[in-house]
């Protein structure tokens, strides 16, 4: 298996991820694996002990994981969020915006395709879980710092 694509500098968590139910039952795990239908908000009270959250995409058309990642960032989680499963390279830019910072797709990405996808759009129209400054703020300098 190819190395996952990773946008973090910290050490790669090496313990296996456990299911959401298993994670909530055992206090010593630090990696959890979310299925598409899992309610990510159940992790709210225990986020400070998690280093890695894998969010699975059973098929690319199933977009629930986009909400899961953004909600995790909204809850203040700063650890790794990894997209696994049927992940399309053309959507990597949008996944980054939702807070994903590593990718282990079923079919490994081509590096050039990743670069193209990440640099395709010069601006964004709306806030998300990333620091990108939306167009409306660029239009109104008085809003650029908050």
């Amino acid at each position, binding site marked *: 298996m190819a190395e996952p694509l990773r946008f973090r500098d910290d050490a790669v968590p090496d313990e296996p991820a456990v299911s959401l139910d298993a994670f909530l039952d055992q206090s010593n795990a630090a990696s959890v694996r979310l299925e598409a*239908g899992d309610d990510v908000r159940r992790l709210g009270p225990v986020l400070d002990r998690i280093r890695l959250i894998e969010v699975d995409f059973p098929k690319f058309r199933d977009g629930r994981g*986009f909400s899961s990642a*953004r909600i995790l960032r*909204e809850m203040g989680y700063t650890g790794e969020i990894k997209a696994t499963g049927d992940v399309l390279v053309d959507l990597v830019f949008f996944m980054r915006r939702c807070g994903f910072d590593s990718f282990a797709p079923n079919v490994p990405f081509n590096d050039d395709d990743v670069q193209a996808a990440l640099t395709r759009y010069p601006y964004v129209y709306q*806030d998300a879980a990333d620091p990108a400054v939306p167009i409306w703020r660029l239009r109104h300098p008085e809003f650029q710092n908050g």
Partner: protein
Amino acid sequence: MYKYDQYDHAMVRARVEEFRDQTRRRIEGKLNDDQFKPLRLKNGLYLQLHAYMLRVAIPYGTLNSSQMRTLAHIARKYDRGYGHFTTRQNIQYNWIKLEEAPDILAELAEVEMHAIQTSGESIRNISADQYAGAAADEIVDPRPWAEMIRQMTTFMPEFSYLPRKFKIAVIATAADRAALRWHDFAVRIVKSPNENGAGEIGFEVYAGGGMGRTPFIAYKIRDFLPTSQILSYLQAVLRVWNRNARRDNIHKQRMKILVHELGEEEFRRQVEEEFQHFLTLGDDFPQAEYDRIAAYFAPPPFETGLNEDIDRSDPDFALWLDRQVAAHKAPGYAIVNISLKPTGQIPGDISADQMDLVADLAERYSFDELRATHAQNLVLPHVKKQDLCQVWTALNEAGLGEANLDLVTDIIACPGLDYCSLANARSIPLAQKLSERFADPARQEDVGELKIKISGCINACGHHHAGNIGILGVDRKGSESYQLLLGGSGDEDTTQAKIAGPGFDESGIVDAVERAVDRYVQIREPGERFIDTYRRVGMDGFKEAIYG
């Protein structure tokens, strides 16, 4: 109308280049059609029965003359000299070559147009009242909010793969010309119910409507939403749906199904909870951005002191005036409806030459503005009453002078089996036959308002559920068959049409429609429209006449 700035231009051009790259990978065989499909469907490109079809967005149905001329140019250069206006106020081209699609998008981008999110599981082009900014009965022009929603929902990361398509409508009148409650999410601008909030406006919010195989009329989920919070509220609705919708059956993934399964109360509760959360994130565009957008929708410089009198001595002109012209908010002005339903023609189709003519008229007589309607017609929104006769004469010469707005020949029809790979039956020839059957102008005027809507399959692109008379094409043991429905409405008195009984073949359905119309004429009470009579007597009042 709205003008792109450097940012809007950059985004649309980036999308053109992305699509050019995706198309190249497809043509070179690096992507197969299964892989290419989700990419092209994010950009309005369908593979139909005979060719690719490209659907171009006309945001909230508003366009100017240079955009219309570009649409004409595309029809000539890349298609067969015509285009087709759709029930989402868009235009589509039916004979597109894949390798030319990126060039078309590049030409569109030059006039601030695109095909972004006109198909696929995405937030589609936002529809609006075609009279917005002109209607005499309007509280305020709703298009600045429609444009704000357009920007917010363009390439929205969290909703990159929604369960299904998502359709939004925005109006600001009590009269509903946009089929509001047939949308997934719709807002109507209203005045504050609170007497202390003098003059304050907000949104009445509807959610969970939709046609397709399981039709639902949207519920009102909020009486009054401050306009400044619309983007938070919309995100809340989208998130509740995105997280909770089924993903195992494509026919049960529209938001209407979730609203129905959760129940109105529980859906509302979840949305309100998520909404309170979104308000803390500060995603709503600020007043300054609303003001910037709204400035583009400032009323055009209407002249004052204009003559209100119109010479009605030509009976054909008088007929057209009464039928095609609506009241304008500015004295001395009128709204002109241009029929794309001449007798025997294809509903919504327009030739490149006609597009150019309409563009000329918009430029000369309507402050350069045009509108597309969900009923597949066009509108010149701001015409001086004293110019109406010249406009009518020019339209007549171009074959666009039909006076049949909302009459029995003003038929909505989907492309059907002549083009569409999903269709079970043809819609266009049926619309043409009905149009010919009822061609007599005196008969049409006598019958009065009667909205016929034809879909070639249960996906209901022809809005048959909302037809006073709806027709649904089905495949019955390998041959085309048509079901007859009565009693639907897409207006402010929204209702869902009901199936009358057994289906018909193509000539049989035309006769059956005529029997229903004749029955109405026979039993109507003074002042009753077809829909009123139907509501009074019910299906039983028509059934025997239809089935004998």
